[in-house]
């Protein structure tokens, strides 16, 4: 795991700092008011005048001291602070999307397996395939167009086209977790929570739509696998109703791979939120990382990719452990 994080940081570091770009590598550390001598001091302090591998060493030392550098485009705030203030928004969006993925994907998969090779199965398959063939950005804009613009034109209750909270409500509850939905709940302000939920629907759905197909296909495959096993035949021959057989006996075992995959979905969605966040002007780390790419902010990109990589690696680990825990036949 350490090795993976090390590798990710080396690749991003070399890509972001090792090649000539429109921005000098120290651009994030300086401001307009600095004198040339101060700039020189900064270049020396972070080792920008040295070869890349020594620069990396300097960066690593800074990081272990908790110094992730600065992000100039965010008014020169420390990168870590920028990241920490944006990250909860992304987590909120991702959790909402994961819930939607499970709530739609699992029933779809079960339906598809039970009605194997019928019209219902084909329909479920089409939904699943459409999900992972859809350009996210396009889908996001279509959702905006329909649920914000056309609903507004038709005088229906319309969903917001972007943002996390209505302008007037912003800042009315104290920031505790940074996630508007939770903050509203903690402050006991249900209007705030409701508004935040209202805002999260479209982005979460557009993010979830891509992944729910995968989950549905996996649930279908594992359900079909389980339904053919001897203990299901046994349960049926005992005279149990089909309902009991499916929901009490088959489903529990069929969901093991699906549940363990949810961890991976969460991690994948976290990284995949860049486009959705950009379209819905969601102030999370994804949309900001796109800005960081265009602004040549290697500090932010390093922090972003390291945190995402960390989450992906940890969820892989958790998945392995959960798998063994849920299915005692598996031993590592």
């Amino acid at each position: 795991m350490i090795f993976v994080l090390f590798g990710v940081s080396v690749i991003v570091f070399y890509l972001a700092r090792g090649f000539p770009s429109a921005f000098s590598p120290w651009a994030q550390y300086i401001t307009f008011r600095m004198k040339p001598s101060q700039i020189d001091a900064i270049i020396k302090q972070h080792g920008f005048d040295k070869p890349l591998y020594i620069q990396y060493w300097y960066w690593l030392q800074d990081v272990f001291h908790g110094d992730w550098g600065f992000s100039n485009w965010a008014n020169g705030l420390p990168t870590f602070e920028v990241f920490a203030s944006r990250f909860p928004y992304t987590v909120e969006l991702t959790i909402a999307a994961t819930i939607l993925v499970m709530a739609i994907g699992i029933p779809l998969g079960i339906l598809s397996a039970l009605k194997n090779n019928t019209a219902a199965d084909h329909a479920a398959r089409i939904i699943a395939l459409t999900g992972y063939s859809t350009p996210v950005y396009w889908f996001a804009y279509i959702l905006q167009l329909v649920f914000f613009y056309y609903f507004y034109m038709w005088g229906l209750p319309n969903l917001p086209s972007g943002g996390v909270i209505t302008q007037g409500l912003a800042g009315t509850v104290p920031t505790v977790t940074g996630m508007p939905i939770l903050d509203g709940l903690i402050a006991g302000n249900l209007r705030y929570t409701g508004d935040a939920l209202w805002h999260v629907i479209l982005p979460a759905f557009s993010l979830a739509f891509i992944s729910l197909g995968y989950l549905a296909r996996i649930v279908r495959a594992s359900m079909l696998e389980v339904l053919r096993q001897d203990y299901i035949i046994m349960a049926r021959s005992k005279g149990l109703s089909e309902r009991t057989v499916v929901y009490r006996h088959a489903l529990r075992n069929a969901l093991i791979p699906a549940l363990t995959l949810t961890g991976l979905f969460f991690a994948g969605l976290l990284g995949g939120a860049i486009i959705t966040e950009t379209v819905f002007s969601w102030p999370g780390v994804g949309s900001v990382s796109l800005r960081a790419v265009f602004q040549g902010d290697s500090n932010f990109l390093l922090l972003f990719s390291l945190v995402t990589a960390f989450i992906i690696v940890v969820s892989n680990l958790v998945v392995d452990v959960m798998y063994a825990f849920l299915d005692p036949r598996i031993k590592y």
Partner: protein
Amino acid sequence: MGDRSDRKDARQSETQARIAELKYGLYLMRQNPLVLGGSILVVFFIILSATATLIVSPEKTYTFDFSQSYCWSNPIISWGPQGAACPAGTNYILGTDGFGRDLLGMMILAIPLDITIAIVIVAAATAFGVSLGAIAGWVGGKFDEAVLRITDIFFAFPGLVLALVFAALFGRTIDTLTIAVLLVWWPTYVRLTRGQVLVEKEKTYVEALRAIGVSPVRILLVHVIPNSIYPILVNSTLDIGGVILTFSALMFLGFSPSPALPELGNLASDGIGHVFTAPWLIIFPGLTILLIAISFNLIGDGLRDVLDPRLRR
């Protein structure tokens, strides 16, 4: 004498079995209406991309005919160059883009580029992944370990970020963007091939081949790789759709070499600021991407069912 004819018989019956298997597979695929639909769509898109320049004249489409293109009666004319966009109507079936060009013509011209790039990326990723994965699985040991750790790193990456950084650094050309997507795509194939080769390696026929003194290189190239290639091919088919999506997403996010380039993601990105006033700019190119991706995915999904006997029910 008898030995030779036995061998010939065995070979013949093996070929016959393979043909029967193939026929059964094709039969199963024909049985599935979705696969059939996907295949028809793919053939349609491939024919369309081969004949795109014959159907639509590029010169005529790229030229801005001011007297024709501008929709002076269009109320959205007041907001800048995008005023050149006409809604769908009699003159233009799908309307015009922000430069007053026929959107349908631009989309037809864009399809060959998208499909070619997707196939190139997937082919390159497959070729590279299969060679590296096969060697890693076959050789094992330290080399295998090293390859695994490197793919681990790439798997832990938020894929799009790597492509974004790469594209931002090396300039906005089609070549760079192709490499950027390729960079994200190859590790899957390494893992997949390695896993397959590891399974095949332990089978008795490999042992038998070793016993009769066939060289390891020959076993790997002639026997093991062909035996493990099917799941990889299925994955390639499924990935063509994904690659088109990723590539067009990069274009959409602003890495297009030129706003005039006929590429579906690029055409869609023209409509970003005008979703509510000129929605056709984004609807139709996006829909085309969706159709191309879904047609390849339908085939891939069907292939997976056919090639995996456990799912043949």
